[in-house]
């Protein structure tokens, strides 16, 4: 980037606060691995040295939703599981993004049946629908890159009007 060279010459750079915040956000997306079925295996594979999700700053898969900002829903979501997925999503701090990984998550997939939710966008706001059954790890990385592009275009004021989530979580318990 030549950033170091510029710092050596002039000692400072100018930018907007929005750009700096978006830049730091997009390069450390911490995923919540919502691995529900076979797509989870490909999601795990994307963390291994061959595909290495760490190249994109997302190697910290957190198993607590409170430290995550990207939920990768990897697998078939049944009606019974939908409440759990939503509860975990509600516990993630804003701003947050969702990848619907695989055919089942995006549309119900081959499970056209009474017990499988025909697409998680019925109860979650989805940013990326990732095709494949299951998608390959490099496909997931592509989705991550697209999420990063999306995050890079955000501004701080985009998230100011959001109402605070979480109250209904407590009541459901």
């Amino acid at each position, binding site marked *: 980037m030549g950033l170091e060279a510029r710092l050596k010459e002039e000692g400072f750079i100018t930018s907007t606060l929005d750009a700096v915040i978006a830049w730091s956000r997009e390069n450390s997306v911490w995923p919540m691995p919502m691995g529900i079925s076979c797509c989870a295996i490909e999601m795990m594979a994307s963390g291994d040295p061959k595909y290495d999700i760490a190249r994109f700053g997302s190697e910290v898969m957190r198993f607590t939703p409170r430290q995550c900002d990207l939920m990768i829903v990897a697998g078939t979501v049944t*009606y*019974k599981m*939908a*409440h759990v997925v*939503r*509860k975990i999503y509600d516990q993630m701090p804003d701003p947050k993004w969702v990848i619907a990984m695989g055919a089942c998550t995006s549309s119900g997939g081959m499970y*056209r*049946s*009474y*017990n499988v*939710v025909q697409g998680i*966008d*019925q*109860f*979650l*706001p989805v940013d990326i629908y990732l095709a494949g059954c299951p998608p390959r790890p490099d496909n997931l990385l592509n989705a991550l890159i697209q999420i990063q592009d999306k995050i890079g275009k955000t501004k701080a004021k985009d998230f100011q009007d959001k109402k605070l*989530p979480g109250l209904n979580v407590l009541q459901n318990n």
Partner: protein
Amino acid sequence: MNLKELIPQKLQERFPQVKFEFVDYRGDLSVNFDKDHVIEICRFLKEDSELEFRLCEDVTAVDMAERKKRFMVVYHIFSLKHNFRLRLKVPLPGEESDWNIDSVTSVWKAANWLERETYDMFGIIFNNHPDLRRMYMPEDFQYHPLRKDFPLMGIPGSLPLPKKD
């Protein structure tokens, strides 16, 4: 003696009052009988020293919607001693009040969850079951999905989803 001959002989000897029907299809023996003596027959098959069907592999049911005897409970049991599989088929009478059968959990503990699953999917009541709750569907669900009159895509609104804000 061949087990396929021994089982019918022993069962008829031990339970002369029960009407058995034996079917040998593609190398697997099935035994059909009515639901009244299911526990005694199962216990006999398990504990007889020449048979020893110690393993209850599956308990399930079949819904044959058109038939007069609509439901049939099916037990798959296995004798580790003889490496022999046996299928027990128990048709239930046609009236809804008769769609129940005695639980065999007192014979095989493994039948506990299998019977819960059958109850969940078909609505067949297992009498004296220690914990007859639904296995897969939510506890307040009102239908039994594997019945033939249940639509493939379910009853709209019967399974609530969380609200999308």
